């Protein structure tokens, strides 16, 4: 792609967060059971319900099965009454998390503060865990979700977030790659996709290292690599995603008119 066409594609009428939410929502399929975290995942899953997945079942760690979050009424976490709107059932937090362990969940869907080349996520400590420069809020259900099901992670693509080695493994991806996840006692699940405002990535089957599968319109592989703190693999044929449609952006903005999640 020439510089000129890249520039043209970048003159876009949506923000990075909106792009991320749209691209993340597209990865979900109608009929799936999705365990969603707060923020972009909740928003993207709700967007998918409205667009192509009316039969998408969303679970929240507060104990909800099958919610349809109301436009303009986004919850401040996945533990408030707004998360139960039009749900089929509410049960205890422990019991909804146990659905992951029992195998009822197709996709775990989360954001992340820091991720490494094997998809390990850190949301606990920046710096040395014994003496952190920043104490982050911690795992919540993140560790349970990533330990027990297939994961899609949605996050902003920044070098300080995509690091060679996370300061702390809060939620395990493929740990040290190869068979190390299974060897650690996690035979099920694992990282499936990482979606950012630049790219959609998967993981190499053998080494379990992160791999570029598709680029968003106007984004080059070099740009992705420049914003990543470790060597990225790339698929033989890299796809280009379709830009967000007017309809997608319209529904998304209707869901979050106060820009609670989409800054």
């Amino acid at each position, binding site marked *: 792609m020439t510089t000129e066409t890249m520039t043209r594609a970048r003159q876009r009428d949506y923000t990075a967060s909106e792009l991320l939410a749209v691209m993340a929502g597209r990865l979900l399929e109608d009929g799936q059971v999705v365990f969603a975290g*707060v*923020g972009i995942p909740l928003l993207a899953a709700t967007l998918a319900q409205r667009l192509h997945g009316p039969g998408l079942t969303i679970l929240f*760690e*507060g*104990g*909800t099965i099958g919610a349809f979050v109301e436009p303009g009424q986004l919850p*401040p*976490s996945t*533990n*408030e*009454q*707004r*998360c*139960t*709107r*039009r749900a089929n059932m*509410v*049960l*205890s*937090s*422990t019991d909804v*998390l*146990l659905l*992951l*362990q029992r195998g009822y969940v197709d996709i775990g869907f989360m954001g992340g503060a820091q991720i490494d080349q094997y998809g390990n996520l850190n949301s*606990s400590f920046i710096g040395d*865990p014994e003496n*952190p*420069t*920043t*104490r*982050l*809020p*911690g*795992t*919540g*259900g*993140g*560790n*349970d979700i990533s*330990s*027990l099901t297939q994961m899609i992670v949605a996050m902003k693509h920044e070098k300080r977030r995509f690091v060679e080695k996370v300061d*702390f*493994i*809060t*939620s*395990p991806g493929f*740990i040290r790659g190869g068979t*190390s*996840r299974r060897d*650690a*006692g*996690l*035979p099920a699940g694992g990282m499936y996709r990482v979606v950012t405002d630049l790219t959609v990535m998967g993981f190499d089957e053998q080494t379990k290292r992160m791999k570029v599968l598709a680029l968003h319109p106007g984004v080059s592989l070099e740009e992705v690599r420049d914003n990543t703190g470790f060597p990225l693999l790339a698929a033989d044929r890299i796809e280009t995603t379709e830009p967000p449609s007017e309809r997608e952006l319209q529904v998304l903005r209707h869901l979050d008119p106060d820009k*609670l999640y989409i800054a």
Partner: protein
Amino acid sequence: MSEAYLELRRRTAERDRSLREKVMSLEEAAALVKDGDKVGIGGSTLSRTPMAMIWALIRAGKKRLSCSRSIMSSEGELLFGSGASEHVLTSWFSQGIVWGVSKVMRLYTESKRARFEEWSHMAVGMRFKAGAMGVPFLPMRSMMGSGVLARLPDARQIDCPFTGEKLVLVPALNPDVALIHVQRCDAFGNAQMDGLQFMDIDLAMAANRVILTTERIVSNDQIRRAPDQTKIPFMAVDAVVEVPFGCAPHECYGVYEPFFKHLDMYAELIRKDPAKGIAHYLDRYVYGPKSWTEYLSLIGVEEMLDAARRGRRIHDD
């Protein structure tokens, strides 16, 4: 060998489990909690937080409370900032993502003035569940391979005696006292809960004492007309306190939503200077008012009505 288990049963046997009235004031209920107690807190994040009871414990000058909850929000910061607690066991601790990472939590944990012991969300739940079941542990399949497990000397990894698989055993958590807020209960403590239960039923049955606060006390006849709605039985309950808006500024399902303006104000106050901000907040909203009613007046009737209007919307469909 079975000392701990027999002690747990002894403490239960010693409680008056008869069908008796146990309505009291916040202050009387606070006297049931001792310095150094393990305190289990019901609800999660901004939901059904037993705020009035926590408020009363801070006002009573309690110290060294070891507090556990599925997810901690601003109530954990009040417990740290007031010196009532130096140890919190939870899976996530911050006011809420829309306010960023909480500055008071950071101040206290990073300076090591207080400890935030992090377990996975399911692990916290399984610990309460084991406590409720009267068994010393439960097995589970998450946390392995993570830094979370590596930092927890109280959890054990084993090879399953049946299948040989790796499993994590998490120990029972039996708090000395559980604080739980519900929409309604009778004078005996038969508690009905609407909406999300979180871990409250297991927490109530695991604890050695339960203090219930409630939006309203209803008749025992009303309870008996719908016993399937009773989620915590009277015999597990030691105190009943009627506290309307007892979760404010957090939410109580179907009654009121979070008081967002007040929570924004709190976040802004501690963002500028966490130490001074929390001290100012405690002075004004916890130590200052003469009663819970006066505390609510400080928050203001406009905010209360707005939160209540939003809270009741859940019944609209």
